């Protein structure tokens, strides 16, 4: 059991604060880890990176190595790294980098550090914040409530398939596709098989978490020429297990539900804005008045919600 949430605003606003509310209302579904994917106002150039190192005593050394790899790919810091640490051994970092010559080529090399330091999101607008602990703790630690954006995802994790580790929290970035993030409620039973297939195509997975697969799987299908809608539909007979997942891109959020209708999804849409969550009581935190609630309770459902007048590109 996990709790997931999505939020779309009509114009850039306090999406961080509202996602924290949506997750706080669902903390009973899993409080071992919490994470957020927030889409700010897109940059024209440069990528925002969020990352995590697992031993803060090695921070200086690892950042030097990381910067060397950036430079090898024609990139460097545009904004100096900002670190967040606490009593835990791991550290979190945010930075803005100049465009590398090729994102996929650069992240392939940067992932050589992945046992010690990993990039957890890369995008013109996407930032993924994840950590162990409940929503309020994670929000306080990382200043999530102050983050401004158009849309985003939230996740409260109750680990069932792999360990509780700060980097095994959701959301997951669809490595190496910039600006793509996912949250998932459920269990993927054939993830190991799919992971092997995707790894043979050159994709990399940094955790043992089954959900990391979905973001890459959907993005790979889109790379092969499917539209987002087609990829979401195809995932239902292709990926085995129970799931309701949401996948976000700069244009909006898509979702898919498994064939057995095992996991909930509740949505309120009003005046070009939208809140989606596992539980109705969460979306009511954002829309407290009585309003029409859409229960996506049925099997094999998909949908796409776009931000403002953006269109979901193929």
């Amino acid at each position, binding site marked *: 059991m996990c709790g997931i949430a999505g939020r779309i605003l009509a114009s850039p606003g306090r999406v961080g604060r509202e996602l924290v509310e949506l997750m706080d209302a669902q903390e009973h579904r899993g409080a071992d880890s919490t994470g957020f994917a927030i889409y700010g106002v897109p940059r024209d150039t440069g990528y925002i990176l969020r990352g995590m190192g697992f031993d803060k005593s090695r921070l200086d050394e690892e950042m030097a190595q990381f910067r060397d790899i950036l430079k090898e790919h024609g990139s460097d810091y545009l904004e100096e790294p900002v670190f967040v640490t606490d009593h835990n051994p791991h550290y979190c970092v945010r930075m803005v980098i100049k465009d590398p010559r090729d994102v996929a080529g650069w992240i392939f090399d940067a992932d050589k550090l992945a046992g010690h330091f990993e990039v957890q999101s890369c995008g013109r607008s996407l930032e993924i914040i994840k950590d162990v602990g409940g929503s309020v703790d994670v929000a306080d630690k990382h200043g999530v409530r102050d983050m401004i954006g158009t849309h985003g995802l939230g996740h409260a994790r109750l680990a069932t398939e792999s360990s509780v580790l700060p980097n095994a929290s959701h959301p997951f970035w669809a490595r190496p596709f910039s600006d793509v993030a996912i949250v998932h409620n459920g269990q993927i039973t054939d993830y190991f098989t799919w992971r092997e297939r995707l790894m043979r195509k050159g994709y990399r997975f940094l955790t043992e978490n089954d959900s990391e697969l979905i973001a890459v799987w959907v993005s790979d299908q889109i790379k092969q020429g499917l539209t987002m809608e087609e990829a979401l539909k195809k995932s239902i007979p292709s990926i085995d297990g129970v799931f309701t997942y949401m996948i976000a891109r700069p244009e909006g959020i898509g979702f898919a539900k498994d064939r057995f*209708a095992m996991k909930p999804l509740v949505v309120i849409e009003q005046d070009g804005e939208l809140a989606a969550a596992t*539980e*109705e009581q969460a979306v*009511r935190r954002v829309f407290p008045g009585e309003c029409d*609630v859409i*229960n996506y309770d049925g099997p094999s459902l998909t949908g796409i919600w776009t931000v403002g007048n953006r269109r979901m590109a193929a």
Partner: protein
Amino acid sequence: MSAFVIEAGERHIRDVNSDIQSAVAEGQEVVVTNTLSRHNLGIGLPAGANVRFEGSVGYYCGGLNDGATIEVERNAGWGLAEGMASGHVTVGGYAGMSAGAAMTGGTIHVKGDAGPRCGVAMKGGNIIVEGKIGYQSGFMAHSGKIIALGGAGSSCADALWEGEVWVAGEVESLGVDVVVVEPSAEDVAEVDLILEPLGLKDTSRNWRKMISGQRLWYFESRDANAWLMI
């Protein structure tokens, strides 16, 4: 006598339920306001209790009902009246997944649609849905009746035991080991008797009565392939 008003809001649900139990023990009718789709409202209410929830409620509302009359103004979340022994639960709008799961008696009346697996593993009582029942409704129902007046989703009445699923309107597809039988006049009269007090009797309905094909009752592992759905 005017009803006793209890506000749910952000209060601890145990306190809200405790207030409801105290009020009904004193013989008062109860209205619960500002429900905010919260879970576990009105659990284990006794016979004679009369509780109305304004707005929408979350999961397991009216669970383990022991004879109370419960009304939900708008929608109910998953597991409405789960494990109910007796009583009458009315939902003005939509009832989510697994309404009436494992109930052993009493009546659920849903004025809108019901979600998937309505009446899953029910062991008695009746569920009446004025709209459509969702995917796999009646799954493994041991006894009792599910009556849908507005059609049924796919995999209807999947793996029924001795429960019955009655549908007026379109059935998207049947589940495994289900047979559709022609109901006798006595059967229809029995269903009409359930619908009449709700003001829903209509003799012009074209019923599809679904019961178990009874082949799954004697399941043999060597036949597993015949039942494999995935």
